[in-house]
């Protein structure tokens, strides 16, 4: 039953937990470099193979933001509904279980996990939480992302 006056419909609730289309991303050196340059992050761990080889990672790894991008499939491919047209990114939280290494093939799968509503300055606002699980080529979960979207 939909609560009286709630903007969260049964149709929306039915989409909770439904997995979206997977996004597959190969972790390439150029892609990592572009990301590091966009951030303005000169850390040699992201770019210098000789340097990275001597660290505990044994090679280049990606900076923390790497999977927090539409290209990597965060909050992508998932069906979601909102009664509103205007939308904003509310925030992101990433939990890192293993490093993202150069040469990995990452598969991202997202699902809506939660809706909530709040009364804002311009009326009702809908908060949608989308969880994304990132697995590497060995089927190990390496990162779990939780993204909040606000529509109003």
């Amino acid at each position, binding site marked *: 039953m939909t609560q009286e006056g709630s903007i969260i419909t049964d149709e929306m609730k039915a989409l909770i937990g439904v997995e979206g289309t997977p996004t597959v991303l190969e972790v390439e050196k150029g892609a990592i470099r572009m990301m590091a340059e966009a951030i303005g992050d000169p850390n040699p761990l992201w770019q210098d193979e000789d340097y990275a080889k001597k660290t505990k990672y044994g090679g280049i790894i990606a900076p923390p*933001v790497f999977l927090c991008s539409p290209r990597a499939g965060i909050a992508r491919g998932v069906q979601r509904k909102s009664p509103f047209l205007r939308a904003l990114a509310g925030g992101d939280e990433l939990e890192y279980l293993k490093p993202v290494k150069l040469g990995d093939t990452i598969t991202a799968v997202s699902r809506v996990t939660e809706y909530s509503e709040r009364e804002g300055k311009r009326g009702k606002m809908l908060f949608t939480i989308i969880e994304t699980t990132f697995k590497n080529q060995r089927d190990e979960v390496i990162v779990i992302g939780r993204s909040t979207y606000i529509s109003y």
Partner: protein
Amino acid sequence: MATQLYYEDVEAGMDMPPLVKHPTTKQLVQWAGASGDYYELHYDKDFARAQGFPDVLVHGKLKFGLLGQLITDWIGEEGFLKKLGCSYRGTDHPGEDLVCKGKVTNKYVEDDQHLVECEIWVENGKGEKTTPGKATVILPSRG
């Protein structure tokens, strides 16, 4: 690289070295290409104005990336970032100084891991925290 930070070096209340950034429109375009986020709000001023903003907006996820650098610069290559999260509370525009800051809130040992919790944020030129967040890191111990 700076000297490695150890668990024994940090205490609750300690500040991280701040990271000062000055995002330009060019940087936003670089981020758009690197991340695959081609929403016009971040590079088309007319589009941003039609939405009621004075200028294009710095991507939230780019600010997440700046906070990521704040942490990885601080913890060094022996540290491991376990969790990073932030809320895109306020908007930021290119041409403004953004300062990423952080403070240690707690430290503890769990399952042999030396964990440190931090409050982190992006501050604009007016000193407003536009992007508050939290991070949990694992630091090496001198044992």
